[in-house]
């Protein structure tokens, strides 16, 4: 019980609740259910990407290409929709998942087969993917009026009062929760990140596990690409530019160790929600737009500092006396 209370996730939940209460005390409309749904929906892309990024970071890698992958896949989906307006949504989603996974696989194969450091690989593919968007679209935007209503309507459609976009975030979290905790692959993510050297001894192929992480992260980025483009009804070269760092920030705020091997999916999701609330609350509570950037930056720094304090391992205790005190 004490363990649960002291966990990083619980702490983060507490911070999120406190933050929400603080905002609500000044702007009661913020905790209006409709607005909360809104905030959650707005945060959904970040949540989905954070799930993918969390897996990648667990394996001691990092994927800086997620936002570029999102933008490229989104553009392809939008262009497909323009070219074949009749294409059913499931087909579009399949394209998004497959293309995203493919782009992730490119990262993965470079990390796996050529053992290039992930940050270098994804720094490279980040610029390459963005460039490809320009090449295929000739720099032109795809605007709302060119997209079919079904295409733009899908993430907005409501089921039980919640937009599909939000449901997809919930579903993603649920599926990956099972993957992480109950499949050999999920456990391998922890093993590979926690002690890659030892993972080899345990018969785990480190490179392939990292490859799988990149494919999953890419797949989720691709899915988000379609959802993003449909939600905001526009596709162009620069969508979600710089979002990759926000995704990483969400993971780390949520307690995913940047050195790999430690942290939980729940933490990453809470980290995303934390950032989402800050981002969404600031315009709503009427803070000058010029203050927003600094506030979210400060929030990241404070959250990380807090997190590191909370997560500091006390290590073992040799003195019997101290051990007794610690248990008391």
């Amino acid at each position: 019980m004490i363990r649960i209370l002291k966990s990083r996730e619980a702490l983060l939940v507490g911070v999120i609740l406190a933050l929400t209460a603080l905002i609500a005390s000044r702007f009661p409309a913020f905790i209006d259910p409709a607005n909360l749904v809104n905030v959650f929906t707005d945060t959904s892309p970040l949540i989905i990407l954070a799930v993918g990024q969390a897996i990648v970071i667990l394996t001691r890698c990092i994927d800086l290409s997620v936002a570029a992958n999102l933008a490229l896949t989104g553009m392809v989906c939008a262009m497909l929709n323009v070219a074949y307006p009749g294409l059913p949504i499931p087909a579009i989603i399949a394209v998004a998942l497959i293309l995203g996974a493919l782009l992730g696989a490119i990262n993965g194969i470079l990390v796996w087969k050529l053992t290039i450091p992930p940050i270098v690989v994804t720094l490279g593919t980040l610029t390459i993917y963005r460039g490809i968007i320009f090449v295929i679209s000739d720099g032109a935007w795809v605007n709302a009026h060119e997209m079919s209503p079904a295409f733009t309507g899908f993430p907005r459609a409501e089921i039980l009062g919640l937009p599909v976009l939000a449901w997809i975030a919930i579903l993603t979290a649920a599926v990956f929760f099972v993957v992480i905790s109950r499949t050999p692959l999920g456990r391998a993510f922890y093993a590979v990140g926690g002690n890659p050297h030892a993972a080899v001894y345990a018969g785990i192929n480190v490179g392939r596990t990292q490859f799988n992480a990149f494919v999953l992260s890419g797949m989720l980025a691709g899915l988000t690409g379609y959802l993003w483009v449909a939600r905001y009804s526009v596709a162009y070269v620069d969508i979600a530019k710089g979002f990759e760092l926000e995704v990483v920030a969400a993971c780390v705020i949520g307690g995913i160790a940047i050195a790999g091997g430690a942290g939980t999916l729940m933490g990453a999701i809470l980290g995303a929600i934390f950032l989402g609330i800050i981002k969404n609350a600031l315009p709503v509570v009427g803070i000058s737009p010029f203050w927003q950037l600094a506030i979210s930056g400060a929030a990241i720094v404070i959250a990380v500092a807090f997190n590191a304090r909370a997560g500091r391992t006390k290590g073992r205790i040799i003195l019997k006396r101290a051990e007794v005190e610690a248990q008391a």
Partner: protein
Amino acid sequence: DAHEPIRIALVVKALGIGFFEAANDGAMEAAEELGNVEIIYTGPTSTTAEGQIEVINSLIAQGVDAIVISANDPDAVVPVLQRAMQRGITVLSFDSGVAEEGRMLHLAPSSDALIGRTIIQLAADHLPDGGQVALLSATATSTNQNTWIAEMNAVMGDYPGIEVVATVYGDDLADRSYREAVGLMQTYPDLDAIIAPTSVGIVAAAQAVVDQDMVGQVNVTGLGLPSEMAGAIESGASQSFAIWNPIDLGYAATMLAYELSVNEVVAEPGAVVPMGRMGELELDDTTTGAMANPFTYDASNIEQFREIF
């Protein structure tokens, strides 16, 4: 060499923006009319001054005859443009201006005062009893939007019932603008209109109004492209909006560049420079001239223009 084509570079804020693509069409039209003119359409991929400077550097190196620029930052590009002028290149700005010392003349799409009045007038037309309006601008640093907003504020006295409750910035990013628009509607439940004097912001705001089920309550207006705004007019999210014709703007800028570089017209206060089918441009004390009045689009004429730009 008379046979070498005259090379006029059109440096835009960022590649891929519909408005500038249309301006490029106008430039091409002018080039065809003039003959022996080559248009180099270029610009950075994101709206930064540093990006434009790199582009201008390479244009200087290529020794183009004229640079026509819509600046991301009126001051930051001044030194590099001054260098261009020192190397004998004609420099003029259009759409979003460059500080006076960095160009020979500035072609404003319309007079700033007129635009300022138009955007508030568009909102006021549908608010006979007054009400709350909010501004959704581009980046906080973009010159033209800031000037228009200033001009608009200057005439607010003529609209006593109308209150501007907030100004927010969507950075000319679709998602950011969308979120800001949603934020506006939540913060100000009684909001009646959103004025977005930017083609990116206005589309995003219209989308947000539709998504928030606020059609009929919040009217989105401002400056936008008919092709992009057709849907918003149809859905009723926007009653009307205005814009000048970007094709004409590109055409006029090219004509001016040609006059200055080939026909050696001197751009000085009070000068009158011809610009082909667009007539003549009269330069004021800051060697700035306005092309034409903004034109208003609504349900009655949108169909006619949506295919054009």
